[in-house]
């Protein structure tokens, strides 16, 4: 070998370009040339020459092709049936088109970057949203035959109550007996025990479940030990606990030998019987660290059919459908109504596929976001289509040559489509990269409590979606220019010398139509974002009934072994409040057993002295809250009538309550509630309670929900082991956390301080989903607006360039710059006006779908519609102003001479 130094990779590349019988000859010539230049000049020049030789062969698509029979190879291959190239004409054309398209993309780098970035953003955003939709909504639950899993609720709709209410143990038990329909029915409840003996005391989320939950409903075996046995689940059976993989790893170092040992939960020993596999999350109370048996049976609960304190999931028998299960449950429900009218009148069962039920809160938001992001992609596609149309026009000289050389319309359309495909593929690659980032951002922004959000990832399924999307996108934006180019009459193009006119008037009309569609889509998105922002504004303006600013809250649960009675718990909380009040920076302290917005349950039926007891099923229900004397002042809940509680409201003084406005208005509409007496069950005067005050309504169940009846009890008369302590602070509430923790530890080192945080963050957290939706929709709408503005700018610029001559004439005839301005902007406003009109019609239709997600905003909110339409008009004027100004600066002589 005389020349081992010329680039081997390029030599290899030649094999793609040159037919085999000539390959050695061509290589020989190139080697000869290389050696000659290398010896006469230098190696660098020789290498450059070689490189250019090969690249130049790549870049001569039109004139230099193998195997043709004419002067220049036409795009349509000559029809020689005997000499058809291997692989078929279609494939050869396709490969050639793609290669050419890649080169075209490389040559027009600016254009390619704009198109690929636009598409990448659209595809990336879609993929990211889809990854969430897929993980949260679409994917089957990770359990065997998961379609057999259902959730069971009590249906209170006939009582004007909720469709999904909790159930009593006996009502669940009666379904469990129907073994031909239900393979197994579980009951479960949350459980927040305090873990001690393993480092600092810690309150953990856990769950109490019936024994068949893992073995027969979820059908997931443990990785170590066993799940629960029927004997574990009997009342007073020895305490056992089944660990999640996460807790086992974090707290016990994933040590398999812990099976059979005990941990201390709420100061009771629990024997560890097993560990569930990594990633096994039950489809309810998914953040449980461990599980223990519920330990209830009919013997202990038969009398408590009205205690709706449990929730339920079940597995249907093989081959049993949802309708069969519902029919059977309806029959059982009807029987229970007859047998136990006191508790069960007008209550039914509601059964839903478990997965659908789990994600029902997230579903509408996610579909809205997926819809919105699809619109963004469509706007992006329109932009790209417009860019391609403009470029097709610019390239019509080239296309005309091809047509003249015998390429048919279909063949040219195919070439344009191949270019679109290459652009779409590049956009898909960029989009995939963006999707990885976008998905992470989405997950971190997602509102707390979004089901299955931890399952979100960009995996093969999501990438498959991206692939399909990319192909669809290529078709959507590629089909317009392809059709246009394919149908064009190139005679005009050739006659006019390759400059000036459009591919026919229809091209202009198509471009205008695309702009109208783009504006309409942008308006839809803007209206959507506007509605959600309005909704969020209204939600933020809602008075929660308390003042969240400067409030620090925490939860404590006293173990019953060391705080066995009312006296002990009362003493503890009274002392604790005094201690906290003495801390520097703490102004007021008060406690309640359930914080506002958190919506913990605790309702009871009550009677009013002197009024007949209501019939079954129409009981007067109120939410019971136990508060200490300082609570209303601390939370700044205003007193409307009467008085709040005093420290003197204790077991030795007459029983008193404070009611909320809703209850006062509903049951004492035209009379003074103060001094009225109510009782719960037992009408004995000893148990009657006098209403001594009325306080304003507090949003206990979230900002959106109306405040139901509420009755407050003075803590000293009705104590609780679990309390939330609220502190009004002078400075930054979070700065007090260490001293608050210390104060608790000084009183009882084995208590876990749980849920410590500010009321502000609790309030903000309760609006997380609304903020998430508003934020993303604003982002999408902003993106669509920018894209639409760019698209409009492009089209107006183009239109101006097409009408230079006309404008030159007008200026020559005395039109002043104002006239030209008005003409250009006026025409673009006509397009925008049509787009807004179409968009408004669409908005009326589409916004109805989001009504359920909005708070006190009509989907036809006139303010939102007016503001968004105005914003679009302003943006359109700005986008048209630049080309308009260019038009006014025309030199009419130059323009008229140039044509």
């Amino acid at each position, binding site marked *: *070998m*005389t020349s081992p130094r010329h680039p081997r990779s390029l030599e290899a590349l030649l094999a793609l370009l040159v037919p085999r019988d000539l390959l050695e000859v061509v290589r020989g010539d190139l080697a*000869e040339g290389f050696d000659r230049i290398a010896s006469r000049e230098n190696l660098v020049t020789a290498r450059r020459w070689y490189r250019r*030789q*090969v690249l130049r062969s790549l870049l001569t698509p039109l004139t*230099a092709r193998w*195997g043709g029979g004419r*002067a220049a190879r036409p795009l349509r291959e000559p029809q020689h049936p005997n000499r058809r190239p291997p692989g078929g004409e279609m494939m050869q054309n396709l490969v050639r088109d793609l290669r050419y398209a890649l080169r075209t993309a490389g040559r027009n780098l600016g254009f390619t970057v704009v198109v690929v970035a636009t598409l990448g953003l659209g595809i990336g955003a879609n993929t990211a949203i889809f990854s969430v939709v897929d993980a949260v909504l679409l994917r089957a639950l990770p359990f065997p035959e998961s379609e057999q899993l259902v959730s069971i609720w009590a249906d209170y709709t006939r009582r004007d109550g909720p469709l999904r209410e909790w159930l009593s143990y006996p009502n669940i038990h009666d379904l469990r007996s129907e073994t031909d329909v239900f393979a197994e029915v579980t009951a479960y409840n949350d459980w927040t025990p305090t873990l001690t003996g393993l480092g600092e005391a810690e309150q953990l989320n856990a769950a109490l479940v019936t024994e068949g939950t893992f073995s027969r409903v979820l059908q997931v075996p443990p990785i170590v030990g066993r799940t629960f046995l029927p004997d574990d689940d009997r009342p007073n059976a020895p305490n056992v606990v089944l660990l999640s993989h996460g807790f086992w790893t974090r707290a016990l170092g994933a040590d398999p030998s812990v099976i059979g040992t005990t941990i201390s939960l709420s100061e009771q020993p629990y024997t560890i019987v097993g560990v569930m596999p990594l990633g096994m999350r039950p489809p309810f109370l998914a953040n449980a660290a461990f599980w223990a048996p519920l330990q209830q049976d009919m013997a202990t609960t038969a009398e408590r059919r009205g205690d709706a304190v449990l929730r339920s999931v079940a597995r249907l028998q093989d081959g049993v459908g949802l309708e069969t299960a519902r029919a059977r449950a309806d029959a059982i429900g009807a029987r229970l109504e007859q047998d136990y009218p006191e508790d069960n009148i007008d209550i039914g069962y509601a059964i839903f596929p478990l997965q659908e039920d789990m994600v029902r809160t997230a579903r509408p938001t996610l579909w809205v976001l997926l819809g919105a992001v699809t619109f963004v992609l469509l706007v992006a596609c329109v932009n790209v289509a417009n860019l391609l149309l403009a470029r097709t026009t610019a390239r019509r000289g080239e296309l005309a040559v091809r047509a003249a050389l015998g390429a048919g319309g279909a063949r040219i359309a195919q070439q344009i489509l191949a270019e679109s495909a290459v652009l779409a593929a590049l956009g898909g690659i960029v989009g995939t990269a963006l999707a990885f980032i976008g998905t992470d951002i989405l997950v971190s922004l997602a509102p707390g409590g979004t089901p299955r959000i931890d399952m979100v990832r960009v995996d093969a399924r999501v990438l498959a979606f991206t692939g399909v999307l990319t192909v669809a996108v290529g078709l959507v934006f590629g089909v317009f220019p392809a059709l246009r180019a394919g149908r064009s009459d190139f005679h005009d193009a050739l006659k006019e010398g390759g400059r000036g006119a459009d591919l026919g008037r229809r091209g202009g009309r198509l471009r205008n139509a695309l702009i109208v569609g783009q504006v309409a889509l942008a308006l839809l998105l803007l209206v959507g974002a506007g509605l959600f922002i309005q909704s969020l504004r209204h939600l933020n303006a809602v008075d929660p009934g308390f003042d969240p600013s400067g409030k620090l809250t925490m939860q404590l649960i006293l173990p019953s072994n060391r705080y066995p009675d009312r006296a002990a718990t009362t003493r503890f909380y009274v002392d604790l409040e005094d201690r906290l009040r003495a801390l520097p920076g703490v102004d007021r302290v008060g406690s309640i057993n359930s914080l506002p917005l958190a919506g913990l349950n605790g309702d009871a039926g009550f009677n009013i002295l002197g009024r007949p007891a209501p019939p079954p099923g129409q009981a007067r229900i109120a939410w019971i809250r136990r508060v200490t004397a300082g609570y209303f002042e601390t939370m700044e809940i205003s007193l409307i009538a009467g008085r709040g509680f005093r420290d003197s409201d204790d077991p030795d003084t007459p029983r008193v309550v404070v009611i909320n406005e809703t209850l006062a208005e509903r049951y004492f509409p035209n009379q003074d509630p103060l001094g009225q007496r109510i009782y719960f069950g037992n009408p004995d005067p000893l148990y009657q309670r006098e209403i001594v005050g009325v306080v304003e309504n507090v949003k206990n169940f979230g900002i959106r929900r109306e405040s139901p009846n509420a009755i407050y009890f003075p803590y000293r008369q009705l104590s609780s082991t679990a309390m939330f302590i609220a502190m009004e602070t002078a400075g930054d509430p979070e700065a007090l956390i260490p001293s608050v923790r210390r104060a608790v530890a000084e009183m009882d080192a084995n208590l876990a301080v749980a849920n410590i945080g500010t009321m502000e963050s609790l309030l903000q957290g309760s609006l997380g989903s609304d903020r998430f939706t508003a934020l993303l929709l604003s982002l999408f709408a902003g993106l669509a607006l920018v894209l639409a503005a760019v698209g409009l700018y492009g089209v107006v610029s183009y239109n101006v360039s097409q009408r230079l001559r006309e404008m030159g004439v007008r200026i020559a005839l005395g039109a002043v710059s104002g006239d030209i301005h008005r003409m250009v902007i006026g025409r673009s406003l006509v397009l925008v006006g049509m787009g807004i009109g179409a968009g408004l019609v669409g908005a009326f239709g589409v916004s109805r779908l989001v009504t359920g997600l909005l708070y006190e905003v009509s989907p036809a909110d006139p303010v939102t519609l007016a503001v968004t339409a105005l914003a679009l008009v302003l943006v359109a004027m700005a986008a048209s102003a630049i080309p308009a100004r260019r038009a006014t600066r025309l030199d009419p002589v130059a323009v008229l001479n140039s044509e």
Partner: protein
Amino acid sequence: MGKGDYLGEFELVVLMALSRIDGDAYGMTIYDEIRNATQREVAIPSVYVTLTRLEKKGFVSSTLGESTAARGGRAKKFYQLEPDGVAALNRSLDMLDRLSKGMRTDTVPTK
């Protein structure tokens, strides 16, 4: 006489280059001839594209030479003009000649 009977521009260039080389016409010499005469860089593979096409039309013929060590042991392919090629060359040159007569330079776009 159909329109396919006239030569394309590059075909014309290659044929003319071939006619100027005496006996030793293969890839590199044709490349040199074109480059020296036109001051245009051409790709050798493209030259072969055109030569192959011209050979199919019967305008040129080729013979494979011996392997030579100077080219990494690769053979040269020698080309020579055929009578049909000479005729086609003349036809095209005549056409250009006729066309160029009476041509007014001020109709050529100057911009």
